[in-house]
């Protein structure tokens, strides 16, 4: 077996150079929580690895600018979970990050890695969908900004080109009136891959009609899914009991869960329904209370 070419980028510029053609395609390594496992257990043999972990100075910041929150791709889950800025302005992301794996995984796993792998169970991804976040891809030649809703296009398949690096994710700040909730259902209470995860953001207008609704759900299809059928059916409507109950067929149209070693399609469908309905009921309850 050929030895792996290992290259350590010390600056973003260097990383982009190492990824640029004519060099052959490389595997980007950051926290290693996916790549090291694939190599060990998945029969994955990369020819070349570019380690971007030294880029933290450039790519691990969490800042607010122009009404948006920019989170560097090398931010770890632990950093997102404890960031005062996120906890104040984007608690949904902090909460989701805090629910990933267990402390040692959160100390290593990064936002960029979660997006790069785009596992259907990735816990950050429904949040990106619910918040309509944009992934910033840089290459030596250009910078592309792609909403995550158009980023993952198949099972672990994304639009990232091999010369591009995920450097940042930009989250528009949700409206102050919006209700945001994170639900994670794993096999146990820690250190668990999600069987279903749901990030939900929504708000009612003054008349009590749904002003907007974005639901990102994971582990219920080949990719994380933005539940457009549900939103399409409910935006502009009153959330009466009938309206909420009537959303179940739309939920079924949005997702296509399967049986796998972790769970069953039947379970995932039921939990997806229950969690969406729970969110809608909370939305009504919160609006009624204020």
């Amino acid at each position, binding site marked *: 077996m050929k030895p792996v070419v290992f290259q350590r980028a010390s600056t973003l510029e260097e990383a982009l150079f190492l990824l640029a053609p004519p060099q052959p395609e490389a595997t980007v390594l950051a926290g290693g929580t996916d790549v090291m496992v694939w190599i060990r*257990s998945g029969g994955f043999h990369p020819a070349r690895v570019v380690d971007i972990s030294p880029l933290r100075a450039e790519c691990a910041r969490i800042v607010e600018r122009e009404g948006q929150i920019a989170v560097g791709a090398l931010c770890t889950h632990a950093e997102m979970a404890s960031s005062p800025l996120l906890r104040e302005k984007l608690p949904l992301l902090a909460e989701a990050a805090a629910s990933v794996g267990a402390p040692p995984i959160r100390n290593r796993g990064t936002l960029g890695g979660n997006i790069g792998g785009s596992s259907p169970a990735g816990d950050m991804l429904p949040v990106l969908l619910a918040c309509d976040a944009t992934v910033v891809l840089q290459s030596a030649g250009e910078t592309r900004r792609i909403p995550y809703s158009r980023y993952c296009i198949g099972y672990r398949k994304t639009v990232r080109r091999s010369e591009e690096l995920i450097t940042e994710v930009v989250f528009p700040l949700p409206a102050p009136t919006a209700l945001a909730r994170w639900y994670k259902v794993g*096999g146990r209470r820690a250190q668990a891959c999600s069987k279903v995860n749901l990030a939900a953001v929504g708000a009612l207008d003054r008349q009590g009609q749904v002003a907007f609704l974005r639901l990102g759900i994971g582990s219920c299809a080949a990719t994380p899914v933005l539940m457009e059928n549900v939103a399409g059916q409910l935006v502009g409507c009153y959330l009466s009991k009938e309206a909420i109950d009537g959303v179940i067929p739309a939920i079924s149209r949005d997702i296509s869960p399967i049986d796998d070693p972790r769970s069953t399609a039947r*379970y995932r469908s039921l939990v997806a329904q229950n969690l969406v309905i729970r969110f809608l009921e909370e939305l009504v309850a919160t609006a009624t209370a204020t």
Partner: protein
Amino acid sequence: MGFIGQSIPRTDGFGKVTGQATFVDDLCLPDMLFGATIRSDEPHARLERIEWDPDFDWSSIVRVDASDIPGRNAIFLEQWDQPALAQDVIRHHAEPVALIACADRELLETARKHVTLVTRPLDPLFDPEEALTSEIKIFGEDNLFKQIEIEKGDAPGAMKSAWRVVEGEYRFGYQEQMYIETQGVIAVPGEDGGVTVHGSMQCPYYVLKALTPLLGLPPEKVRIIQTTTGGAFGGKEEYPSMLAAHAVLLALKSGRPVKMVYDRAEDIAVTPKRHPGVIRHRTGVDREGHLLAQEVEILLDGGAYCTLSPVVLGRAAIAAGGPYRCDNLKVLARMVATNKPPSGAFRGFGGPQAAFGVERHMDRIAEEFGVSPLEIRRRNLLQIGDTTATGQQLKDSVGIGEVLEKVAEISDFENRHRAYQHQPAKERLRRGIGLAVCFHGGGFTGAGETWLASKVDLELTSRGGVSIHCGSVEMGQGRNTVFSQIAADALGIDLALVQTPPPDTATCPDSGPTAASRTTMVVGRLVSDAAENLLARMTELLAQQAGVQLDAIHYGQGAFHWEGQDLPFGEAALQLHESCGLVRARAQFVDRDGMVWDPQTYRGDAYAAYSWAAIATEVELDMDTCMPRITRVVAAEDIGKAINPLSVEGQIQGGTLQGLGYGALEEVKMENGRFVNYRMTDCLIPTAMDVPDMEVVIVERPYQHGPAGAKGLGELPTDLPAPALAAAISQAAGFRFDEIPVTPERIAARLTQGKEGA
């Protein structure tokens, strides 16, 4: 003041908190090769030949197949049916067929891909219910490894006079031991044609007895040394014999040490797990809710080879009726063969399956009678003077009533159970509480201990102390500390003077397997006996040296006294060690209980002493996600005497969590005869977040022949959490769950089924 009864920190703790303890994978020998196993990819097939890719350079790889086995190709336990390497027929997925070894691990992995097994597929048999009548034959003519029938009184007759007959069926899946240290051994060839095996194991003498016929070597040429063992729980009772056989075959062929340590995926995919199966109960009850007749049918899936399955079945059969008084009982228990990896020993050893069946059934009886689960048990518990399923009369040491009442009181069972019956149906978070009781016999079944004839040696050391030599291992359960406490008290010396070297078959007698909750109760007693024999031997030698009569010397307060002289133990030990060389004393098991046992009819005294336990668990069930959260665990366990209360609590807490995992979390899924969730990511065990602090009560009803009254402990706590947890979840969900694990998926399936039906 003695050491028994005190919470002494474990004597092997220092190495474990500093990283100095040597586990097998920490050993690295000169010229060592790494071994790997070539396994079948089919559940049932005829093996035509093994193809070694002629274009691959095999020069630096050692290759072994069945033709390299010098003796009999079998791993002997109960039967000779399981080959070390498959020959002619493959009977389960991942069955070992050939072995390779190489100094370079990367090359080893590459080489593995250049071996092809040429096979002709055979129809596989997966369903244990079809095993007896199937055309497919795996074991004998009927695929029956063992059948046990127990008859007490006249169950069919008594059933006719019952006021009501309650029937139920209870199912349970595989459970993986998931010791954190995977299986591993190193085999070292000797210059005399013999071999030494270092490894993580429970039973060095099982390995010895498996290797000698396999290699055609006399026992003195095979030496087994236990390395620090990172958890076992039954999982390292039988499989190390297989792994050692493989490493030894490679070592003998290569003439070099060979290390084989499984990675987690291989460990989960191929090593034996707790037997899955089904238990059916039919119980006749009188108007007062007393059990008149019990009929129980047990079917366990043994997988492709016999391993220890008949003994597991025996445990299950004896425990099938539960710790209840019933004069008429009939048990039909069967262990059948299927084309799956063999099932095997796991803490509880048939007990958890039996307890799950009978305890869920008692809940069903309570429901039908409209009495509480506590009340139905109170009315039927065994008491002193009653007879067990095998007709054994209980004479003493019966703490079942006490443990049940303690748990009922602490958990406030009746009030909570009643309150949760009336909780609002629509709540998202619903609560439930469940209860279970059980018993577990200490030691080998029936005449097993007499047959084992276990031996323990105590030897004076050059430091003026003693060392304990026997085949029982420390695997985390506390053997070293407990044995040290027992020996120190028996000798009246300081704990620091007692050493517990790891078992080595060259220097330690066979004290039987480290299993069956027997180490403290049976072997611990032998430690105490050996200490007395050692004192007698020392007295004899001192009398000779001092030229006095034997009875002129007496021992007390840690010193020998005669004619105005006081010779402390340590000084005497040093003096004798120097003057006499090796001073050793042995104790061998003798049956002090006068046990009478018929292995054919399963009638008689099944165990010298029983331990008793009760548990209550509470859950909060999220009806949206069907995820139960365990909110309370109260357990009381009568173990005769807690030699080391700290260690006892640790055993109870750890064993309880394994039992809770069995009840609602842990699931090894199988498709077409192979385990599909063979990674730790998918084969879950509880984390620290999955359980609350447990409330543990130790009850001490001494067994007169145990060391200081101690009875078996290791397995008891694992036997009973599953039915209690299933009961709690059932109450919370409003549906009865009689199959474990009660996973959220099962709950969801049941809830949606209910909705469809409504």
